[in-house]
């Protein structure tokens, strides 16, 4: 496993002035070849923003304020547009959260696939069609829908079509932002399974975003937990399952008990996430935290601490280690 994508100190804001929203703050995250990294957190904590910023797809008013993203040794955010274009889809693909509306309503599905392949140098129509049919099979959409227009597909089919599109050029990294929310559990499993099989076969990495922590625990090699724009904990899947350190992670586990566990009381986390325009000083989770320590938690922002190798957390319950925050 070698380093593929490295997000370092990334801070992203929407807008400017007093109403600016800091949606991602000082996030470090690494993705290695062939691994599945999960990102979880409540709605609005900045998951999608992180994914968009990390792939250079952020639109105004969104702006990267600090930090950078390196992909295969290049500074992705400073790549000239022409070079960035060649990275997209071919190297890094993105399955958007709003898969419903990401297909061009006036073009047939087939043409939208052909456009993509032509843009990346696949000029043989036969090859393009064959590739398209192969990925359609993978996501279990009948090939006849290639001739359909997007509005003729069901929501779930549209999502699967977009997943198929992300796979068609066999990229090295795929961001999947809640790719299966419109699908029922059975189809969801089946698709994730076939994506995973393919991943093992072709060795690409996946960054999987969801608020369903239990799902991540099943499929992810490593999991990062976000809260109010901050990355608050990161660990391997099993480690996080057995030993969630951050009180917020623990609360999330309660909210989404892993499959198989007794779903006795499915409860949300009490309270509301803070206003991202005006974060209180101290730990952003302090106001909702059961283990809050007055005087520390509400005044000092916790730094990232490596607790054991591969497991780091930003919480005052775990004293700062000497190596500092960054993961080795």
């Amino acid at each position, binding site marked *: 496993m070698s380093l593929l994508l490295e997000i370092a100190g990334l801070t992203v804001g929407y807008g400017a002035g007093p109403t600016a929203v800091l949606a991602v703050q000082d996030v470090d995250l690494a993705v290695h070849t062939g691994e599945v990294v999960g990102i979880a957190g409540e709605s609005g904590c900045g998951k999608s923003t992180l994914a968009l910023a990390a*792939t250079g*797809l952020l*639109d*105004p008013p969104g702006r990267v304020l600090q930090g950078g993203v390196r992909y295969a040794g290049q500074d992705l955010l400073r790549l000239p*547009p022409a070079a960035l*274009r*060649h*990275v*997209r*889809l*071919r190297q890094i*693909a*993105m399955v*958007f959260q*709003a898969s*419903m*509306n*990401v*297909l*061009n*309503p*006036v*073009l047939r599905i087939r043409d939208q696939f052909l*456009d*993509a392949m032509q*843009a*990346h140098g696949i000029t043989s129509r036969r090859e393009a069609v064959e590739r398209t049919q192969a990925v359609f099979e993978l996501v279990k959409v009948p090939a006849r829908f290639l001739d359909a*227009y997007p*509005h*003729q597909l069901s929501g779930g089919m549209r999502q699967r079509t*977009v997943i198929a*599109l992300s796979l068609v050029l066999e990229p090295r990294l795929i961001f999947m932002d809640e790719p299966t929310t419109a699908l029922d559990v059975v189809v969801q499993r089946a698709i994730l399974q076939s994506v995973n099989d393919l991943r093992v076969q072709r060795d690409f990495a996946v960054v999987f975003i969801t608020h369903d922590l239990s799902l991540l625990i099943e499929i992810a090699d490593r999991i990062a937990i976000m809260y109010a724009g901050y990355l608050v904990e990161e660990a391997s899947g099993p480690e996080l399952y057995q030993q969630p350190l951050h009180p917020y992670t623990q609360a999330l586990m309660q909210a989404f008990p892993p499959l198989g566990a007794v779903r006795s009381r499915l409860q949300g986390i009490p309270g509301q996430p803070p206003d991202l325009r005006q974060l209180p000083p101290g730990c952003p989770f302090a106001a909702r935290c059961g283990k809050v320590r007055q005087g520390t938690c509400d005044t000092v922002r916790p730094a990232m601490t490596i607790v054991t190798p591969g497991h780091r957390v930003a919480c005052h319950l775990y004293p700062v280690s000497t190596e500092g925050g960054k993961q080795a």
Partner: protein
Amino acid sequence: MRYLTRRVLVLLLTGWAALTINFVLPRLMPGNPAEVMLARFQGRLSPRALAALTVEFGVHTHQSLLAQYVAYWGHMLTGNFGLSLTYYPASVAQMVAQAFPWTLGLVGISTLIAFILGTGIGIAAAWRHGSRLDGVLLPVSLLLNSMPYFWFALLMLYLFGFVLGWFPVGGGLNLAHQAGGWAGLGAIISHAILPAATITITAAGGWVLTMRNNMVAILGEDFVKFARAKGLPDRVVEFRYAARNAILPNFTGFAMAIGFVVGGALLTEIVFSYPGLGYLLYEAVLNLDYPLMQAIFLFISLAVLVANFLADLAYILLDPRVRAVGRS
């Protein structure tokens, strides 16, 4: 096809309304304008022509309104629009038939150019929206869109006709009677350039504005962002994904726009003494030539109706979603 059926219905109803307005107006207006007109032409027309007019405008008649209406329709359907008072003894049909191709050529071509030009500029402005170009284009288009057509035409005529002498300043009316051949064509073109340029410049402003706004809205859509995420070249995203969708509302808004342009074009013809329907209408208004006025109104309305219908057809061809509504 439900959409098409509806459009045909609107077409027929509007045609009926245009004809009926012609019937109702002279009978409805206070002060009996038709009688005033007849009084003016007493002695200048043959008694038979005068008698026909009294029937046509419902003056001093014992027929019931319904019978008059039926007779009126009979006349319309057989192309019997009566005699022109201004050009007596020429018939209205003759005068209109002579002028119509001139207007169709001038207005048709310049509207088409304005549409293409304005749409193109609108696309470019939206693609760079927020830029200096966009910032300048917007007020300029607003200004062009707010200028009285005929006034701009007068200035153009003065500047390029009288001061610079690049184009003929009159004599267009004789064109209709000139010999054909290449020389004739050259004369026609040299007389048409200035009015065509006037119409094109003023009409393009409106298209710039609508297209720019549609396009800005579309650029915020997920499918445009996804097109970029696919790594498509900018040109493809701009035209095949964004503009292709942004142009669709122009077809539904076509009715109002074309009505506006045609109105402006008629005034432009008057300024340039161009031998089309606009100038004829002006003469008719000056001379209270109601039969001629009515026929011109009718023909302009029908031409606009047909243009609208063509726009509807184009819309159906361009938007698969409308087609689908028709099929189901």
